[in-house]
């Protein structure tokens, strides 16, 4: 593309890889690719020389990686990457493959290495596992290193001026370690996705990055002013004054927020007067568990399983479900994960299951009602969860229970699933805790009796609020009536917590109210000790907990419960910040 007037204010869209905003000068990294020559080896002495050349290049490569490893200040992850590269460089399989190309096919050493690396990279790229696909970058990296030593070409430039934004095809794992990272403030690459090496590296170094920009990135040249917005996945070239000022302000806000959040990460959620609160994450798949752990969640208070049932053509089999739950259980490393059985209904249609047409899907055939009606689907899910329970600490939770009878029926089916597994000699956690969501008003009112038959409650405030107040949040006309601070809703929540304590069972809250800092103290005052929310909300809630004494929470709760309308309650809570 032509440079000049066209190359200003251009906006390039890529994939969000590492959040934050960087404003700096571009440095474009060009890779020197080795090309095959097609020249064949003439005789045995050339074959022997080719083998010798390969061995020397490998040796030199191993020495280079070892010297990289001796750098000071490497993180454990960086050392791991380099150790892995040494193993790949000396891998007997790769060596055997290269030797075969040389001796059998009489290819020259460079062609042989290009060939073997190319095939191996392809093999990894086509694997059905994200993690293994990412390893293709490591193989390419060690291959490039061997080739560089065969061709005696120099290293990539390794020092940059301050405030450099690095642009490249991709950043290889070992380049990333060799570069002086203190001067690189952002990345943008042509290839790669969320789990690519560049993305992982950028995240671990807290450097904003946008990957997978494609050839659009080629309009940028070294020295251009570039903005990398890793939060929205946009790269801006030579922005005008207005754009630049706008982004400078955004960057400041972004940095301040990041600083605040990371300062809270390792602080325990304990009030100044010593009351410990458990902060859990709401998750929808195994990857969410990574985020949960990053924010130091004590586990997953709500593992939604609907994602497993969406975007497919048939119900997932028991084995498919097992994989899904097992991976999450293992990732949690022993921390508790509460698995909620399916909460589907007419509002979330599935391609392979026809829901009856309903006027009120939220009051209709959904969640536990489907599970109890279609026990074949239910028992498959329960068996999969039970089988996954040996890989971590799982709990089972039933959604939308509205009566004792429903709870008993669900538990009976669970017992049947357990009996089946026992008969088949399949292991599972025989003492797996069983709980239920409290999200239907009838269940909240019956909490005293329900508490005698479960190990824990989890209060789902979103549905509880809309069912209690008879408000559809999606209806513009009545939306304003949806209000979790309505005293009726707060009384129900308070009652459920009280009954749980009376029966000495666990109780947590997993609705949006759990992530609303305005509600934290009221709920603590009611006796709530477990909050489950999106992982990213944890720091803000923790911030409330560590700055307010529990005695204050009790007082606030008493005052709030004496008020008769939500406006008074919200106004009062705002003065208590």
């Amino acid at each position, binding site marked *: 593309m032509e440079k000049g007037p066209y190359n200003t204010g251009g906006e390039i869209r890529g994939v969000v890889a590492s959040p934050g905003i960087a404003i700096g000068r571009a440095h474009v990294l060009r890779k020197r690719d080795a090309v095959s020559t097609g020249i064949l080896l003439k005789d045995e002495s050339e074959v022997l020389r080719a083998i010798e050349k390969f061995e020397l290049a490998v040796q030199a490569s191993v020495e280079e990686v070892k010297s990289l490893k001796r750098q000071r200040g490497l993180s454990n992850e960086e050392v*791991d990457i380099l*150790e*892995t590269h040494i*193993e*790949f460089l000396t*891998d*007997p*399989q*790769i060596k055997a493959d290269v030797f075969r190309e040389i001796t059998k096919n009489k290819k020259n050493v460079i062609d042989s290495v290009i060939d073997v690396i190319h095939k*191996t990279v392809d*093999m*990894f790229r086509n*694997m059905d*596992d994200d*993690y*293994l696909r990412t*390893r293709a970058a*490591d193989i390419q990296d060690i291959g490039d290193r061997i080739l560089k030593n065969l061709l005696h070409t120099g290293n990539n430039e390794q020092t940059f001026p301050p405030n450099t934004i690095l642009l490249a095809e991709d950043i290889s794992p070992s380049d990333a370690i060799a570069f002086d990272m203190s001067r690189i403030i952002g990345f943008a690459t042509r290839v790669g996705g969320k789990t690519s090496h560049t993305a992982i590296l950028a995240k671990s170094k807290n450097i904003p990055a946008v990957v997978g920009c494609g050839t659009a990135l080629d309009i940028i040249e070294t020295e251009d002013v570039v903005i990398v917005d890793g939060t929205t996945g946009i790269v801006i070239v030579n922005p005008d004054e207005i754009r630049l000022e706008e982004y400078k302000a955004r960057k400041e806000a972004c940095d301040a927020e990041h600083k605040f959040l990371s300062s809270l990460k390792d602080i325990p959620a304990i009030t100044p007067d010593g009351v410990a609160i458990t902060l859990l994450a709401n998750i929808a798949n*195994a990857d969410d568990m990574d985020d949960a752990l990053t924010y130091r969640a004590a586990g997953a208070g709500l593992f939604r399983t609907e994602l497993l049932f969406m975007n497919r053509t048939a119900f997932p089999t028991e084995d498919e479900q097992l*994989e899904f739950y*097992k*991976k999450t259980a*293992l*990732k949690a*490393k022993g921390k508790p994960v509460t698995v909620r059985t399916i909460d589907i209904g007419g509002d979330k249609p599935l391609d392979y299951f026809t829901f009856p047409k309903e006027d009120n899907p939220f009051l209709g055939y959904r969640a536990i009602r489907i599970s109890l009606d279609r026990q074949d689907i239910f028992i498959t899910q329960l068996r999969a969860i039970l089988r996954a329970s040996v*890989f971590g600490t799982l709990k089972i939770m039933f959604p939308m229970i509205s009566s004792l009878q429903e709870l008993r029926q669900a538990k009976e089916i669970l017992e049947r699933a357990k009996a089946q597994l026992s008969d088949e000699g399949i292991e599972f956690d025989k003492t797996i805790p069983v709980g239920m969501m409290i999200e239907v008003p009838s269940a909240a009112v019956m909490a005293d009796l329900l508490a005698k038959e479960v190990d824990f409650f989890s209060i789902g405030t979103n549905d509880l609020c809309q069912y209690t107040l008879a408000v559809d949040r999606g209806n513009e006309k009545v939306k304003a009536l949806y209000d979790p601070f309505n005293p009726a809703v707060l009384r129900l929540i308070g009652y459920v917590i009280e009954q749980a304590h009376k029966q000495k069972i666990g109780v947590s809250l997993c609705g949006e109210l759990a992530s609303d800092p305005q509600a934290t103290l009221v709920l603590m005052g009611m006796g709530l000790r477990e909050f489950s929310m999106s992982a990213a909300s944890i720091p803000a809630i923790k911030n409330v907990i560590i700055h307010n004494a529990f005695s204050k929470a009790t007082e606030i709760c008493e005052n709030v419960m004496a008020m008769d309308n939500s406006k008074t309650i919200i106004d009062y809570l705002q003065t208590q910040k």
Partner: protein
Amino acid sequence: MISRNYVIMAAEGIHARPATALIRLVKKYKSIVSLRKGESTIQLNSMLNILTLGAKGGDTVTVLVDGADEAEAAAAIDNFFTEELKTL
């Protein structure tokens, strides 16, 4: 020859870091050590082969140890799969 089954108790399976540790552990012994998952068996000396075996978290694998020091090697590998792997 000693043969033992293990369930892989790591979410990512035998990924690069544990594979590196495992190869280096095996190198300390004279015995030939192989890893079997389903139909495929690989020798435990190649990172490439371990990764392509694709042993995922929760999978069951069989370790086969054959050689003069097989008892010592098997004991060290046993410790690897039952203890170390969880922390890697």
